């Protein structure tokens, strides 16, 4: 027997009240844990995915939407832009590098992105197996796509139209897996990369087939399929083609001032800066986050009050117990410690449970939307800040125990025991 065990016995003697207080505290702390984890990983991921992209160019519309669609592949694209206009832009001396992208297809919710080899290079992607695409309809899978679908190099699958699940399938041409990327924890994990030409030809088929399927056109395509695709710069074509977005790297700081204005006013396209749009987004989300944090603080406050009331009430019932402890040799200090220990043990349990609950919440949220940007968060990463949660909780415990502990300290044994 020691003080720890005695405190524990008293806590478990009132399982409902103890349970309620622990749970309430855990709930508050769980919200804080989830916010902490999401904020940390989300912002890290957001800036990681946007690294090296200075400007995104696409069709006119919401700049935030353009960024979400073009960089993070969450939102729908704003529309298409003509390629000759895009090519004009690439000749601008302020542009260091320009990566064209054609979006519009998916495979079971994973987006198929038509682009060139600069795109994986931007994220310093490494091949886990196979090679990058060189011919039309050859694709490279992101690590998560490969994991979920189970496809390996050499496998073939059909893409479907649109960027979310449930649209009609392009059944004319099968995509052939030629490589799988290593898992880097960035946006590429959730993407299927291919050439811009693949996306074009898929849609040509879809439109051409119902109209007429002359041998002439068949041959035309057969030839095209043998050609290699553009691995750098823009795809070569004689026809007038469309792209969806362009990712631009500036040549110098001057570009940041001139280029967006040039594009926004001088062309039918719009330019948006990822860092600007994301900070705008976080500003919008900030209200919600602050609200949740406030809620968590209120819950923690209530649970602190609950712990205080529980200790204080139990103290009334336990005045005899405390007096008895004194009578069998316990000092005032030991009783003080006993009550503090109870508060601290209670809140420590709350803290541990809260952190576990927070991580569990997050893993549930993640499993609920695997293809979204949340889907790539890691629920079981533990942060240093979580230690602070334990510290906060213990502070709540100590604060809630101060008054009851001193009441215990001052209990007069003689009065208590001989009153009855």
């Amino acid at each position, binding site marked *: 027997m020691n003080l720890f065990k005695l405190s524990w016995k008293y806590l478990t003697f009132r399982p409902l009240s103890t349970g309620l207080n622990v749970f309430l505290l855990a709930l508050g702390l769980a919200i804080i844990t989830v916010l902490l984890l999401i904020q940390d990983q989300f912002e890290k991921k957001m800036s990681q995915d946007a690294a090296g992209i200075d400007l995104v160019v696409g069709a006119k519309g919401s700049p935030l939407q353009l960024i979400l669609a073009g960089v993070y592949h969450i939102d729908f694209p704003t529309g298409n832009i003509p390629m000759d206009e895009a090519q004009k832009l690439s000749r601008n001396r302020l542009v260091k590098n320009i990566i064209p992208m054609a979006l519009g297809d998916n495979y079971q919710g994973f987006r198929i992105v038509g682009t060139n080899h600069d795109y994986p290079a931007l994220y310093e992607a490494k091949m886990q197996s196979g090679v990058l695409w060189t011919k039309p309809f050859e694709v490279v899978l992101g690590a998560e796509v490969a994991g979920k679908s189970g496809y390996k190099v050499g496998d073939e699958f059909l893409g479907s139209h649109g960027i979310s699940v449930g649209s009609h399938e392009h059944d004319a041409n099968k995509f052939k897996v030629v490589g799988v990327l290593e898992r880097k924890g960035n946006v590429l994990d959730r993407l299927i990369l291919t050439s811009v030409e693949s996306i074009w030809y898929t849609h040509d088929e879809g439109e051409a087939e119902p109209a007429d399927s002359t041998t002439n056109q068949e041959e035309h395509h057969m030839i095209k399929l043998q050609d290699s695709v553009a691995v750098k710069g823009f795809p070569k074509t004689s026809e007038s083609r469309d792209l969806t977005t362009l990712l631009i790297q500036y040549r110098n700081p001057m570009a940041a001032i001139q280029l967006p204005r040039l594009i926004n006013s001088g062309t039918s396209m719009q330019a948006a800066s990822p860092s600007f749009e994301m900070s705008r987004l976080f500003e919008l989300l900030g209200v919600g986050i602050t609200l949740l944090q406030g809620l968590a603080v209120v819950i923690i406050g209530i649970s602190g009050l609950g712990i205080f009331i529980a200790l204080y009430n139990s103290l009334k019932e336990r005045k005899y*117990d405390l007096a008895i402890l004194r009578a069998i*040799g316990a*000092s005032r200090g030991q009783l003080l410690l006993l009550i503090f220990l109870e508060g601290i043990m209670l809140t420590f349990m709350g803290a541990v449970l809260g952190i576990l609950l927070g991580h569990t919440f997050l893993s549930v949220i993640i499993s609920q939307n695997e293809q979204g940007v949340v889907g790539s968060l890691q629920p079981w990463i533990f942060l240093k800040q979580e230690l602070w949660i334990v510290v906060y909780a213990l502070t709540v415990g100590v604060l809630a125990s101060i008054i009851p502990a001193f009441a215990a300290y001052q209990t007069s044994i003689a009065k208590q025991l*001989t009153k009855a």
Partner: protein
Amino acid sequence: MLFESKKLEYSHPGQKTLIFPDISLASGESLLVLGKSGSGKTTLLNLLAGLLKPTAGEVILATKDFARMKGQEMDLFRGKEIGIIFQKPHLLAALNVKENLQMAHFFSKKKGQDIGQLLAELGLSEKAKSSVLTLSEGEAQRVSIARALANSPKLILADEPTSSLDDENAEKVISLLKTQAAKIGAALIIVTHDQRVKAHIPNFVEVQAS
């Protein structure tokens, strides 16, 4: 003499000073403290247990005057050398019978008597693991006696230990107190107005409200 109290005086705030008769007991002796309600019996018991500080006089147990001890020293001394049995058992409800006795060992920092054996002697062996809430009144009072005896104290104080018990249990409790006190060589002081106790212990002092 194992235990002596000399010229004990105590005054409750705003009341007359109480003057108590001197007590002296040898090892194994027992004594009753009698008196009407409100005569200060309980105050005397608190003084003898070191729960209250006398305004004058001394209380000596095994050559130590503990009336002058303070704070933690007093608590520890009480835990080690004085066993107190209250009118009600006041067992710790959160603990089982055995754990209640272990607490006595823990707080007094003393090895004390073997708990299993002690419980056997008091006829409580089967109850060792039971919650104290399941005990009958008589059993609970015996557990509280076992707790008072757990550290083999030199002085056993009992405050109306039989007042809420039936004849059979009262009988048991008194004989237990007597035999156990004799066995460990402790002085036994019982504060009571219970006739059943007087029949067993002839030796008494009377406290009078003066």
